[in-house]
């Protein structure tokens, strides 16, 4: 046997994290330093197994009476043959290793992402936290605007922006928490975060809807808010692209999808609720604003009374 044997330690993402090439047989595998191939795993024995060539010339992996043994596809083997034209995947303790003969081309080892240390929650330099707070503020501003406006175009734009911003918040919020708590994508963590955050928003919205009666926003102010929001869209795109670069596409889609569904559900619920509520009182747009009064074109009395005919149809459909 003239070939070399390549032993690779693989992580769960099937990435090679360490590669050892051995020529001398038999080669020993285990936790202790005397071994040819050292595996840092408490579930691997000091001297776990060894690679030997048997009488027929085949290369085999043989167990050295280890506690956890050699597992291949969940089955324990005393001795397992290393194929010459294929690779052998086995589990030693809790570590996956791959064994190949030199007939194979070597796969280049990808560098691992740098492991980040959990950062301080209140670190002012935490970019994700700042993004999160910024989007939260903008989102709430948008929703306030939506509550105080009555113009279709304005509310349509506001809804559009709030959905975008809402998506941004979930993403930035997730990225922030992800960095603080864990390096890995955790679906359940993500979902529970969404629930907490949406609950928080709805509480804020209730407070804002009461406060908004005190605030008389003029069209001018609304245009100002819209401009600020447009600028923030650039930040939003940045958040989507860079903060979430480590999440897979489906993660991003789920994030945006859930935020979209949450917003749509909350709107349709409030709309439905308003429609169903029996009220003897008139609800109409009573906001008289000196600036918008001159911006919105006036119509003729005839046109106005023609439009009122729609009311009869609306009432009939109720």
């Amino acid at each position, binding site marked *: 046997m003239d070939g070399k044997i390549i032993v690779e330690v693989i992580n769960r993402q099937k990435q090679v994290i360490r590669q050892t090439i051995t020529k001398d047989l038999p080669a020993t595998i285990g936790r202790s330093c005397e071994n040819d191939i050292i595996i840092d795993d408490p579930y691997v024995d000091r001297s776990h197994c060894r690679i030997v060539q048997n009488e027929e010339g085949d290369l085999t992996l043989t167990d050295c009476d280890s506690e956890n043994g050699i597992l291949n596809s969940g089955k324990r083997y005393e001795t397992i043959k290393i194929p010459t034209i294929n690779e052998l995947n086995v589990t030693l303790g809790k570590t996956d290793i791959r064994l190949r003969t030199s007939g194979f081309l070597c796969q280049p080892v990808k560098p691992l992402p740098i492991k980040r240390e959990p950062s301080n929650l209140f670190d002012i330099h935490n970019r994700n936290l700042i993004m999160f707070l910024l989007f939260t503020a903008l989102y709430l501003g948008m929703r306030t605007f939506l509550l105080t406006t009555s113009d279709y175009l304005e509310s349509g734009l506001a809804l559009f922006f709030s959905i975008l911003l809402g998506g941004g918040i979930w993403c930035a919020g997730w990225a922030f928490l992800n960095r603080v708590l864990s390096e890995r994508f955790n679906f359940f963590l993500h979902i529970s975060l969404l629930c907490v955050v949406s609950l928080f928003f709805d509480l804020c919205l209730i407070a804002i809807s009461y406060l908004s009666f005190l605030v*008389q926003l*003029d069209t001018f102010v609304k245009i100002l808010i819209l401009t600020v929001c447009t600028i923030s869209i650039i930040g939003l795109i940045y958040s989507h692209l860079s903060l979430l670069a480590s999440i897979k596409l489906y993660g991003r889609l789920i994030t945006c999808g859930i935020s979209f569904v949450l917003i749509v559900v909350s709107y349709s619920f409030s709309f439905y609720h308003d429609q169903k*509520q*029996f*009220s*003897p*009182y*008139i*609800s*109409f*747009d*009573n*906001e*008289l*604003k*000196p600036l918008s*009064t001159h911006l*919105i074109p*006036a*119509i*003729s*009395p005839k*046109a*106005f*009374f023609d*439009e*009122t*005919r*729609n*009311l*009869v149809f*609306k*009432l*009939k459909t*109720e």
Partner: protein
Amino acid sequence: MLTSICHKKCFAFILFVCIGSQLLVAKSNIPTWEVFKKYSNHVVKIQVLANHSVAQSSVGSGFFVSAKGHIITNYHVVSEIVLNSNKYHGEVVSSDGHIYPLRLIAIDVLHDLALVKIESKINDFFVLDDLKVQQGERLLSLGHPHDIGLSIVEGTYNDFLKFTRFKRIHFTGSINGGMSGGPAILNSGKVVGINVSSAGNQVSFLVPVKHALNLYQSSKDKKEAKPDDFIKSIRDQLYSNQDLYYQNLLKHSAATMNIGEFNLTNQLSSKFKCWGDLKEENEKQLFTLRSHTCFSRDDIYISKAFITNKVEYQHLHISTGKLNRFRFFSLLSKYMSEEFYQNDNQSIENQFTEQRRKLLTNFKCQTATIDQSGNLIRTVFCLRAYKLFEGLYDAVFKTVPLDQETESVISTLYLPSISFDNSQKMAKKFLSEVSWTAK
């Protein structure tokens, strides 16, 4: 107190007992106890009971008008049976304590009258007749006040009310709940009116007998009708009533007046009562409020949760010397959202939400800024439909001129029980009467 005697029986009595004596003329009336004795068996108690219940839910009075058992009472006594026939039924309790099932024959919601019937031969009944009565004549009203037993109340006839379209007799006697539907008669036993409502302190109202006579004559041969027919009948009565009423108002050119810079509708017609007030809000006297509120007095009772037909309008003039444009417009917005016409009905609104939900939809509104010959006016037109009575709506029309920076007037017109076409015509007329001299 009562000197003019105008019927023969009484006059004969006077001639016989005390001829030529001025003092004794006053005593010449038939004593009340005698009238009571003679006519008490003409009057019945009408009780409305919830189905599967033996206890009454409301009580009123009524009186026989034919030998076949026809009884005249108020519509509002039996309204629950008409509108909720699956939940309520009625009973007639005669003076001797017999209980008969009540059969509804016909109703007249405009005059608050109903013709009902029992299946029994009646010997003692009033013969209805349209008659002229002098102001000041003695009337005796019979009924069951608060269900404490048949009572007789003495009072005087005080002619018709001047401001109502549906004629009501002003009766100076005390009518109480439960007496509704009972007769108010002369000593001779002639019915003058039907007890209907009270304003307290001996100010009570009667429906003139003429309407009861019309109802009886037009419906005496009818059989018991189905509840749906009554709903349709109420709808038709309301519809033709509003047509007539609003057409008249539209023909009438309303009197106008000036408040500040504005020229506004004063009285839509002479039947409207108007009240004005002036307020200087808060200590700093930032602005002045002048209100001018007018209303008609033509209530139509549909159910205890729903009284309609009272047209109201208000001009709320707001002027300021101290507020800037933004604050002034903000103030206008606040007053614009207030609903003045609801104040009267506030307790009804709160008490009977469920019942009203069955009768009315929510308001739907159309808002726009309109340009009326160069003047900018914010207008709001709101409608709610009557669910049971097709084609009828409550309409609210608001106008707020927006050209002036220091004064404006919020005008609100409330048109209950109106067809869509008429509501538009009324709103157009109301709008056309708003004008002002631009600064």
